[in-house]
């Protein structure tokens, strides 16, 4: 008689689990790092309100002042056009890859030669284990549970 091979419950559970690939993990990391660059987490409290000042449709009656006003306005607009560029656009316009070093790009510190240190992503203490699903680190089964509930596949704060 051939004995039926017993399968391990743990192996089975593992094979059912979703595993995030390297690209997704990298994407998550860069999203986290981008979040650390934000000036504000909340929305501008003024964004829901109409812009201050009189509404544009109101007719103006002072004819004498108008030409001068108009001139200043176009100047301001020109200024805004020219100076309203974000960091990425400005960096691209610099064409640094074609320029002689040293420059902004070459000045960035290189990757460290020291081995990475690993910390539990829940409590922050040194960790020994890696979450098989997302690659996050944890230090104890308690933290692993919290991690699975809050941050493993979803992202709650």
């Amino acid at each position, binding site marked *: 008689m051939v004995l039926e091979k017993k399968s391990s419950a743990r192996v089975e559970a593992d094979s059912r689990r979703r595993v995030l690939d390297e690209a997704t993990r990298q994407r998550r*990391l860069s999203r*986290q*790092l981008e*979040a*650390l*660059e*934000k*000036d*504000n*987490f*909340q929305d*501008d*409290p*003024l964004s829901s*309100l109409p812009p*201050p000042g009189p509404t544009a449709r109101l007719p103006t009656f002072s004819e004498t002042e108008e030409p001068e006003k108009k001139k200043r306005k176009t100047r301001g607009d020109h*200024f*805004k056009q*020219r*100076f*309203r*560029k*974000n*960091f990425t656009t*400005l*960096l691209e*316009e*610099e064409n640094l890859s074609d320029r002689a*070093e*040293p*420059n*902004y790009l070459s*000045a*960035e*510190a*290189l*990757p*460290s*030669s*020291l081995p*990475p*240190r690993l*910390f539990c992503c*829940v*409590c*922050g*203490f*040194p960790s020994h284990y890696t979450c098989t699903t997302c690659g996050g680190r944890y230090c104890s089964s308690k933290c692993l549970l919290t991690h699975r509930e*809050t*941050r493993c596949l979803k992202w709650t*704060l």
Partner: protein
Amino acid sequence: MATLVLDNGAYSAKIGFSQEKVRVIPNCQFRSKTSRLKTFTANQLDEIKDPSGLFYILPFQKGYLVNWDVQRKVWDHLFGKEMFKVDFTDTSVIITEPYFNFSSIQESMNEILFEEYQFQSVLRTNAGSLSAHHFFSSRPSELCCLLVDGGFSFTHIIPYCRSKKMKEGIRRVNVGGKLLTNHLKEIISYRQLHVMDETHVINQVKEDVCYVSQQFFKDMEISQMKGEENTVVRDYVLPDFSSIKKGFCKPREEMVFSGKYKTGEQILRLANERFAVPEMLFHPSDIGIQEMGIPEAIVHSIQSLPEEMHAHFFQNIVLTGGNILFPGFRERLEAELRALAPAHLPVSVLLPDNPICYPWEGGKLLADSPDYEEIVVTREDFEENGHFICEEKFDI
């Protein structure tokens, strides 16, 4: 002619006439939850009674000036009658810019200073050049110094040989005060209390409780202990902006180690957060930033320079900026550099009395030096030769 010195940082402007005292003023605008229709500029921050959920509008992105609308509003306020009452027809200005500032930003800067504000003469420079001037005027016998400039957006390492900036040795570590505050905000929000909207409050928490550990893993062990043995843990009382105007650390003897406080204040309990956050300056890879930490980057910078200068650099490392103010920073940096530097070279790290205003003080000295007139660009010069003359004279 008066000279206005403006160290124009991404988070705070250090400003004052060269004959007077310096003032540190936020270089941004704010909106508050309570007075929703108003935008507060620079030091009008003090008028906000309840700065919870404070919204920031910053002129800088990643350390570079991009939002000119905001910057001009802040400058209008600073130069105007409420603050410095600048008489542009009789004023020269020294203004700082980041290292490797983009050429388009430099041109905008020329135009705004000369054409919009009409300053009589301008000196655009790096904060480090002013610091170096400060350092060499107080220690004329030294030949070289290496500045560590820890700011809001990033940390720069800049070697100077006399007044000459050694561009090939400049290193940038993309860890600054903003990142540390945001990281602290994030871990507190995840572990105990949602404070993501409270950048202003948490920045204060960071300044009040964070420190640089001298024995990182030992402190990790201590901060894991229970009760009285845990000498790292602190309870921070959050401000409610009615009875508690400013947050503070509970004194050790009033701390309750088990159970809750009966006073009803809102408390943050901080243990490993206290030193794990500034640790990013030494190990950015801890949060996945693949860059060297400050000590490693300093060694890397020095090694890229001529060997006969190495001894001078290791002996004259000067800390400037607000982000190096964490207690223990100087000691830890010196210890790590001692371990990394060649054994026969002495290592010394200098922490000036006021690292935030060290460049400004340098600007003050420079404004009073006899050859100041020769290094500036005057308005007539600019009107005649345009950007070219600025490019010639200023080394950004």
